[in-house]
């Protein structure tokens, strides 16, 4: 499977994707709803994306944006898989059973963002002590221990 077949396949499957979807330079992005995340991931895995590079989240104000970075070794190309997660009671499906690499990365996202992952074997804090309150990487995280660097550039 080379890159063009991949493109046609994806364009066929996700119609709104087609106009400006480029994969060569490694910044191709596939945006899906939260519900369809697991199926899209499984589909991509079957297409040849056998390595899950990165799992992270970005606090976009009124919702979180989950960003997955998938790499295919035989096509030697990388791709983004993104989905939006609502801010109140954020939860999404864990990709552990597709790629075990997601085990610790999802724990880290849970620890720093507070996004629950259903189906994750042991979802607990990984970076912060057990008794930590709050999720620091959220933009609205209040903590009296943080001393803000003055806005002086």
């Amino acid at each position, binding site marked *: 499977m080379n890159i063009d077949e991949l493109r046609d396949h994806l364009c066929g499957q996700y119609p709104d994707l087609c106009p400006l979807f480029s994969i060569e330079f490694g910044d191709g992005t596939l945006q899906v709803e939260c519900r369809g995340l697991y199926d899209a991931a499984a589909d991509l895995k079957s297409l040849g994306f056998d390595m899950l590079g990165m799992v992270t989240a970005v606090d976009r104000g009124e919702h979180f944006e989950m960003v997955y970075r998938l790499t295919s070794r035989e096509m030697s*190309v990388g791709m983004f898989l993104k989905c939006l997660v609502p801010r109140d009671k954020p939860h999404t499906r864990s990709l552990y059973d597709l790629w075990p690499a997601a085990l610790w990365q999802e724990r880290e996202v849970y620890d720093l963002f507070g996004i629950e992952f259903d189906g994750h074997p042991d979802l607990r804090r990984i970076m912060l002590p057990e008794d930590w309150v709050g999720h620091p990487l959220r933009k609205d995280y209040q903590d009296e221990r943080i001393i803000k660097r003055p806005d002086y550039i």
Partner: protein
Amino acid sequence: MSLQIEEQRQTEGPDGRPRQELVVNVGPSHPSTHGVGRVVVHLDGEVITKADMIIGYLHRGIEKMCENRTYLQVVPLTDRLDYVGSMYSNWAYCRAVERLAAIRVPERAEYIRVIVAEMQRIASHMMSIGSAAADTAAATLFIYSFDERERIIELFEELCGARLTYNYVRPGGVAFDLPEGWTDSVLEFTKAHRKALDLMDRMYFGNVIARGRLKGVAVLGRDDAVAWGASGPVARGSGVDWDLRKHDSYSVYPRFDFNVPIGENGDAYDRARTRLLECYESCSIIEQAIEQMPTGPHKVEGQPRLIMPRAGDAYDHIESARGSLGVYIVADGSPRPYRVKFRSPAFCNLALVPKLAVGHTLSDLVVVLGSLDPVFGEVDR
């Protein structure tokens, strides 16, 4: 997990009879955890039945800090991420910023970056081979490999003025040009380094006791390595033929010819030996790079003081000594990044410890940790 843990636990053994397990806490400060990792190990006699890796003891919240610093001020922070290899940590971040702000780096800067990153890879491998050997009590090999690392540190000190936190690779090029006669001393180093590598090879990897300790320990299959997201020598030790410099080539690497050493049976011995063989390759890359290096500016002309890239996101990764070190930056047009995520190879490799440590003895646990070569600045960020 608080520090206090109970010493013994009652569990049923595989045949259902109650069995008493010894719970040992290889604590955050331990000579062979390569930093501040902690493993709570359940021992049946000396055989490990369950290992739970606890990290986060060096979690300084660097990603939160990056959100309140300008793009140039984040570079010193990346030094403190993978402090055994800060040169290529800088480079990974700078590549992501350059991709985001569409900065074209001059030829000479790309060559200098390759030379410096390869030297840093050798220094990092020397550290990891040495400390893994020190875990099996071969302290002399640690001292010889650290001496090699010291030669590189002296070269870096002459190049950019710092021993460990260089802040040398900047978005748009490198901070200063190479000093006079620096490349000759680097060439001398690579010649002497090959001899030292051969010496270390014969002294440690040839040794029967060392082979007894390393072979067959923590065997990682090929598809397990890929599924668990392992990268770098850990994955290549198990036969996964994936090196970003070769297979997802970036910068000026396509112009050099070097081969990528691959292990066969994916045990601690193969991983350590792959690191050593990679040092040979790095030496030849450095020599080729110095040969082909053009003259010209070492950083892009007309660089604004405050880099303000367009809103959007960019991801770029390089082949660090531990694997594929990726940086994902989201920008919102202000001089400060909106979100920075460091994809740390050591973090993903370390996730293998609970899987690999089971079934081995306690003295093998340190070999497992040593072969995965974690640097906790990068693991905990």
